[in-house]
């Protein structure tokens, strides 16, 4: 049994079927990249895994625990979903930092609320000093200690996204998801964000699912690649299998478009 098992996810919006039985396995510490043309359901898949959308059917199992079951997911209470979604973190394309909080407090807020809730339940919880230490160490991991007191509007896009990554890690999710983390950035800023993500894999051994259009990056960092295409369950394999050996014409066409774009 794999660490994370996503099975047979079906999702449609009205009459259009977006996800058609998508599934994959991921081991602890592995990285999966999801590629595919725009509109093929990459964001939708991440949103389903993070409980931001309900699925029509399918299951998600983490560490043997059934977290999502299409059959029963619609009836679940908010508090149950809230607990389950803590297994996952999500970094958005548009960062979605909270504008009225500094970089430091953006990271601190969810942590503080969580610890307060734990304390209320009589569970062991961090003191305020411990929380601050934790936030500092998270900022250090993304190289932004010096910017801790700046507000999002005072940070570059790349810096904002790095804060968002630190914030997503604050609650120690088992799986960290990224939805095109560099698509909203100027080209010269993508490098710093990709570097941070690479370090999370190498130093922290974090299990990650990354939707990206950065093909070189995906090829280098990923243990597995999932190619999503319209009306199918998609194709999954190692970077080598997908980028070099696949004879799926859709994948060839998709990759060709990308390599052309790179050389233009």
């Amino acid at each position, binding site marked *: 049994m794999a660490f994370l098992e996503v099975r047979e996810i079906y999702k449609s919006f009205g009459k259009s079927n977006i996800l058609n039985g998508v599934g994959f396995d991921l081991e602890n510490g592995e990285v999966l990249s999801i590629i595919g043309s725009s509109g093929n359901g990459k964001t939708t898949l991440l949103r389903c895994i993070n409980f931001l959308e309900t699925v029509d059917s399918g299951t998600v199992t983490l560490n043997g625990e059934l977290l999502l079951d299409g059959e029963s997911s619609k009836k679940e209470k908010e508090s149950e979903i809230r607990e389950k979604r803590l297994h996952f973190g999500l970094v958005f394309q548009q960062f*979605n930092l909270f504008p*009225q909080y500094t970089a430091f407090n953006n990271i601190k807020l969810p942590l503080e609320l969580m610890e307060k809730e734990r304390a209320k339940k009589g569970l062991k919880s961090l003191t305020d000093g411990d929380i601050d230490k934790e936030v500092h160490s998270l900022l250090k991991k993304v190289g932004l200690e010096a910017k801790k007191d700046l507000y999002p509007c005072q940070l570059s896009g790349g810096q904002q996204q790095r804060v968002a990554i630190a914030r997503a890690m604050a609650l120690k999710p088992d799986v960290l998801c990224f939805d095109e983390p560099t698509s909203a950035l100027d080209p010269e800023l993508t490098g710093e964000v990709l570097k941070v993500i690479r370090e999370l894999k190498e130093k922290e051994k974090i299990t990650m699912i990354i939707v990206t259009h950065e093909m070189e990056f995906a090829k280098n960092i990923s243990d597995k690649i999932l190619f999503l295409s319209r009306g199918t369950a998609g194709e999954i394999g190692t970077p080598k299998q997908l980028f070099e050996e696949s004879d799926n014409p859709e994948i060839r066409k998709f990759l060709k478009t990308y390599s052309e774009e790179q050389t233009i």
Partner: protein
Amino acid sequence: MTTFGSITLNLLNGFTSSLVLFFLTLLFALPLGLMMAFCSMSKFKPLSILMKIIVWVLRGTPLMLQIFVIFYVPGILFGFTWPIMHTGWEWFDTVFSTRLIAALVAFIINYAAYFSEIYRGGIQSISKGQYEAGHVLGMTKRDIFFKVILLQVIKRIIPPMSNEVITLVKDTSLANVIAVTELMYEAHLLLTKGLIWPIFYAGVFYLVFNGVVTVGLGYLEKKLDYFKV
């Protein structure tokens, strides 16, 4: 009897009621408007439709009409009379006449309707991403609203709210129609006695007070300048 000093006292006396109307309307209409905004955004259709109709009526009919209705209709239909204050504290009992209380209720309901629309616009203008970020960080709906959304909404709605608040300063004079002894009532009384200048003097009261309100709101706006939404 018609010295500058005594007339100033007369007008100040009326102005007290105007101020009471102004501040108490804000105090109650601001939270009531927020609750009404939540109702009109409710997923429970009957509630949201009902609230939208209420807001439509309150904004679509004259405030003066609403003051009349609230002051007279409960008495005529149900024999309900607005309570007379007996606190023994004379100033309080005089200011809070049944008339002022009825006018106050009308102001609160009317302004809550306007505020609710401003809140609704403000809340709906906040990007979905802010809620989603809160959700994936395990925050409760309540925490998301109070710790993340609300301040952004406040920043967004200060300009339209300022307009309403300035209008309210002037609208307090409408209480005059049920003979609440507010500022215009006093000035009008003097006018009927042949004294013209106090009506302009009353205008100065409104102007100065609106000046103070404007400066205060500008200060609040500046206070929230440190972030962008």
